[in-house]
């Protein structure tokens, strides 16, 4: 399941890979699924 949270946040600002990885970690979702969502 794509991480809609990260998909949404990347629509609000230009996030780096590290930003996305930190968000994914905070949500308890694997970084790979977070990356796949955008």
């Amino acid at each position, binding site marked *: 399941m794509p991480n809609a*949270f990260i*998909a949404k*946040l*990347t*629509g609000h*600002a230009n996030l780096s890979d590290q*930003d996305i990885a*930190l*968000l994914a970690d905070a*949500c308890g979702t694997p970084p790979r699924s977070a990356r796949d969502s955008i």
Partner: protein
Amino acid sequence: MRHAAEIGPRFDLIREGDAPGPLFVMLEGWACRYKILPEGTRQITAFLMPGDCCDLYTSILDEMDHSIATLTPALVAAIPRPAFEQLLFDRPMLLRAFWHMQLVDEGILRAWIVSMGRRNSVQRVAHLMCELYVRARGIGLVNDQHFALPLTQTVLGDALGLTPIHVNRVLRRLRLDGVMQLRGGALVIEDISRLAAVAGFDDNYLHRRLRRAA
């Protein structure tokens, strides 16, 4: 907590009067913000879809002034406040993204106030459907002009200030006019241009600038 939890429908994540808790993030499923009036009726003040957060900055308040409950089975992450605040401190672009998200939430709230105050029932329903459609499309939930909309007519009524019977009449009219229909838990948009015209819908308050540019 760094693990998302599966939570059943109609479960209060946090209640009015509670001390603010962690930052809840809707990973899957729907929730709503609501208030219960003294006579027991409910006013829903926001729908939270996958990707939405619950109250970014409430931690500086003493207590919640509204409740948040799931509407469907949901997968919810709970980010501890200290971890969230550290994230914002360390990562300026994340801070900007959350600010932007908060401003969009406030824009949605203003749009709902306008609807409740100045739109008739048909316009009100149509406007909400346009908004939910655009928001769902933004996170990839729309498939060929339809998406899962797991909201009962009672829930819609509580958000729109209408009775379920009134919501039913309006939905029937929009269906007979060939504009949209709610079918099997899905919103099917038959004619998005007409739906937007009925609602007087302008998506500027959703501030989708970055997504458009991408």
